[in-house]
C-alpha cells in the first residue's frame, strides 16, 4: 500500500539557513505517528512542506502517492492540519470559521453547518458560535483549531503541538479523542513537546534534530534500545571506597556514596548484593527505573537522560 505521507531526501532553506537536510520518513495509512524534536528542530517546517505552506529546494514529498507540488489539490484534500499557531479568519464568527473552511474543501453548506454543529457541541464551543475567535480563551481556540481541521473528515490529520499550553483535562480528553479517531481509520501525525504524550499515543516515532532525522522506529523499539531496567540502591553507608576497585559491573555512585545505580541483567544484581554483603553495607531502599521514551529521546538528541546508560 502507498504510504499516507512519504518524504524523500527533503532539503529546505530559509534564505541561506538550512532548516531541513535530507529528511526522509514515511507514515503508513492508519498509523499514529509521533514526530519529535527539540524546539527549532524542523518539525513545523516539515509539516509546512507536506501541507503546502512552505516551498522546498530539493527532495520529493508525496501524500498517498501524489506529489504535493504537482498534484497539490489531491494532496491537500486528504489532509486536515491543526497548526501550531492560531490562524483564524478575523472577519468570521466561530461557526463561520468552520463552515467556510469546509466550503473551501468542497463541503456543501448545509452539510457543513451540520458538522459544525456537532463539532462545536463536542468541543464545548456551542455557546460561542456567533462570537469572533478573539473572544475565546486559549484552550477554546485550540479546540476550534482541531474542529476546523476535522470539518472535511480528512484521511490524514496532522497536529502540530496541539496540547501546548492546554490544561490537563483537555489534554486527556484530546488523547482519548485522537485514539478513537485513529482506531476508526484516520492516519495521524502528531508533534509534541510532551514525550509522555507520544509514548502513550504513537505506535511509531520519528526524531528530528537540527534539521536531520536521527531515528525512525516503533516506540517500543526506541525504548528497548535504551537497554533494560536500571537499578538504584540507596544505602546506609558511603560505598565510594567499597566500589573503587570493582569493574565487573558498570555502575555510578551518587549522593556522596549513598546511592549506586547500574543496569539490571547479566547477573549484575547478585554481584552487587554480594559486594555489599561482603562489606556489611545495608540497603535502605531499591528503585527500578524503567527506561522511557524520554530517555531515548534525550539520548538521541545528545543530552544525557536520567535512565540512560
Amino acid at each position, binding site marked *: 500500500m502507498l504510504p499516507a505521507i512519504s518524504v524523500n531526501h527533503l532539503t529546505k532553506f530559509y534564505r541561506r539557513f538550512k532548516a531541513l537536510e535530507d529528511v526522509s520518513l514515511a507514515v503508513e495509512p492508519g498509523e499514529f505517528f509521533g514526530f519529535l524534536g527539540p524546539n527549532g528542530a524542523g518539525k513545523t517546517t516539515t509539516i509546512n512542506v507536506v501541507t503546502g505552506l512552505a*516551498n522546498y529546494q530539493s527532495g520529493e514529498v508525496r501524500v498517498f502517492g501524489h506529489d504535493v507540488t504537482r498534484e497539490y489539490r489531491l494532496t491537500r484534500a486528504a489532509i486536515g492540519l491543526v497548526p501550531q499557531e492560531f490562524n483564524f479568519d478575523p472577519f468570521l464568527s466561530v461557526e463561520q470559521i468552520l463552515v467556510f473552511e469546509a466550503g473551501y474543501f*468542497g463541503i456543501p453548506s448545509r452539510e457543513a453547518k451540520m458538522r459544525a454543529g456537532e463539532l462545536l457541541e463536542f468541543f464545548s464551543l456551542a455557546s460561542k458560535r456567533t462570537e469572533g475567535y478573539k473572544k475565546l480563551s486559549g484552550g477554546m481556540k485550540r479546540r476550534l483549531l482541531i474542529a476546523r481541521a476535522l470539518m472535511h473528515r480528512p484521511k490524514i490529520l496532522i497536529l502540530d503541538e496541539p496540547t501546548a499550553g492546554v490544561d490537563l483535562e483537555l489534554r486527556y480528553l484530546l488523547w482519548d479523542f485522537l485514539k478513537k479517531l485513529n482506531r476508526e481509520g484516520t492516519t495521524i501525525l502528531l508533534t509534541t513537546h510532551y514525550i509522555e504524550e507520544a509514548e502513550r499515543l504513537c505506535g511509531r516515532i520519528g526524531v528530528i534534530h537540527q534539521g536531520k532525522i536521527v531515528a525512525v522506529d516503533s516506540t517500543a523499539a526506541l525504548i528497548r534500545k535504551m537497554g533494560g531496567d536500571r537499578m538504584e540502591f540507596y544505602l546506609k553507608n558511603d560505598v565510594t571506597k567499597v566500589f573503587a576497585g570493582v569493574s565487573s559491573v558498570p555502575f555510578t555512585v551518587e549522593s556522596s556514596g549513598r546511592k549506586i545505580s547500574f543496569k539490571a541483567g547479566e547477573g549484575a544484581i547478585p554481584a552487587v548484593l554480594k559486594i555489599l554483603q561482603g562489606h556489611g553495607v545495608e540497603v535502605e531502599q531499591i528503585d527500578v527505573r524503567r527506561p522511557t521514551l524520554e530517555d531515548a529521546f534525550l539520548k538521541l538528541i545528545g543530552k544525557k537522560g536520567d535512565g540512560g546508560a
Partner: protein
Amino acid sequence: MKSWIGFRSLVWREIVRFLSVFSQTIFPPVVSSFLYIFIFGFSLGGHIEQVQGVSYLSFLIPGLIMMYAIDGSYANTSGSLFISRWANNIEELLVTPLSYVEMVFAMLIGGLTRCLVTTAGVYLVSLIFVRFPVAHPFEVLYFLVFVSLTFSSIGLIVALFAEEFEHLSIITTFVITPLVFFGGVFHSISMVPDALKWLTSFNPMFYMVNGLRHGMLGISDVPVFPCMGLVFLMCFAVFLTTVYLFRIGFKLRK
C-alpha cells in the same frame, strides 16, 4: 462540482468580509460622491457651459463612477489579502484543495462585487441631481467589469509585495488617485495644454474613464474600441501575473 463549492465559498467569504465592515467600505464612497457631485457638479458646474454637448454635471458622473470602481476594487482585494497575510489566516486557504486560479478568481469576484455595489450606490446618488438615459449599457458593464477585475488583480499584487498596511495606501495616494484625476474624471482632454494631452495618452486611466463615459453618455475624447481592447489586455496581463505569484507562493509560502 466539488471545487465549484470551494470557489463559491471563497467568493462569499470575500463578500461577507466587506459587508461586515460596510461603514468603511460602502458608506464612504457614497457619501463623498454626494459631496463631489454637489460641490463640483451642482454648484460649480453651473458656471461651466457644456462639455462635448452635455451639461458638466452629466459629464462628471461617469468619471466619478469610474473613480470609485477603481478605488473600491483595489481597496477590497488589497485590504482583504494583506490582512489575511498579516493575521496568517491566508494559511486557512493555502491548505485547501482550491486551485491557485480559483483562489485568485474568487478574490477578484469579491472585488468586482464591491465595485458593483459601490458604483450602484454612487449612481443612485447621482440620480438625485441629474438623470439621463444610458447610451450603451453593454459598454458600461464591459468597462466596469474589466476595470474592476484589473484593479482587483493589482490590489492582490500590491498586497503580496506590501510589508506594512501603509504601503497599500501609498499606492492609492501616489499612483492611483493622481492617474485617475489626470485621466479626466473632472475634465476633458480638450481643456488641457498640448504637453499634458500627450502625457495623458500614456495614462491607462484616461481610456477607462473615457470608455465608461462613452458607455453612459455616448461622448468620449478617444474612440471606444481601442479603449475596450486596452482594458481587456491590461486585465488579462495583471490576472496572469497574480496567478503566477500565487503559484510560486510569492510571500505566501515560507
